[in-house]
């Protein structure tokens, strides 16, 4: 099963874009929208990472004979 290295650039890119949007919206005086965008970006990245982590734990469970 191949693991794509591009995903890490994706995560970092989302982080940079969210930081930029946060700065711009803060300058415009829309603090609440800036915080919502940060939260949404964080959840998006968390979803990617949790998917991979679930895959990792399933593999470990398969290799080291954890039944149940």
């Amino acid at each position, binding site marked *: 099963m191949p693991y794509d290295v591009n995903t890490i650039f994706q995560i970092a890119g989302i982080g940079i874009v969210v930081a930029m949007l946060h700065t711009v919206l803060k300058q415009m005086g829309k603090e609440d929208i800036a915080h919502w965008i940060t939260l949404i970006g*964080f959840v998006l990245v968390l979803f990617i990472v949790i998917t991979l982590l679930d895959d990792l734990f399933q593999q470990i469970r398969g290799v080291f004979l954890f039944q149940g």
Partner: protein
Amino acid sequence: MCFSSRDEEGVPIEIIQIVGFCLIATFLTIIIKEQKPAFSFLVILFAGATVFLFLIGKIQAVIMMLERLATNANLNMVYVETILKIIGIAYIAEFGAQITRDAGQGSIAAKIELAGKVLILVMAIPILTVLIETIIDFLPN
């Protein structure tokens, strides 16, 4: 560029791939840490999980060899399974503790390590019992 764990020709290349991947992850982490520390933590977590997933295929080969040796030596499979589970607990606890320590929470990392130690001790109880009973059998009455 993709990691491929079943590539027979590029075996020496794999370490270069991993080191390159980790260098990229470190670089991106340093860049993002200024703006959003939470995202940099997620990048670290993703890199760790990817490297671990890459290595788990290799570990599986070693484990299968150990199992074959144990079967050939007519060992009791319960003990071999217990030892494998202990190794698995150690790997997972180490992974979690390192990630948590990277995020700056040393005390939670210590709790994870404590939990790993206690669970390993609990799983080793049957083996310890058999060992102590064997030693007691050897002792003259």
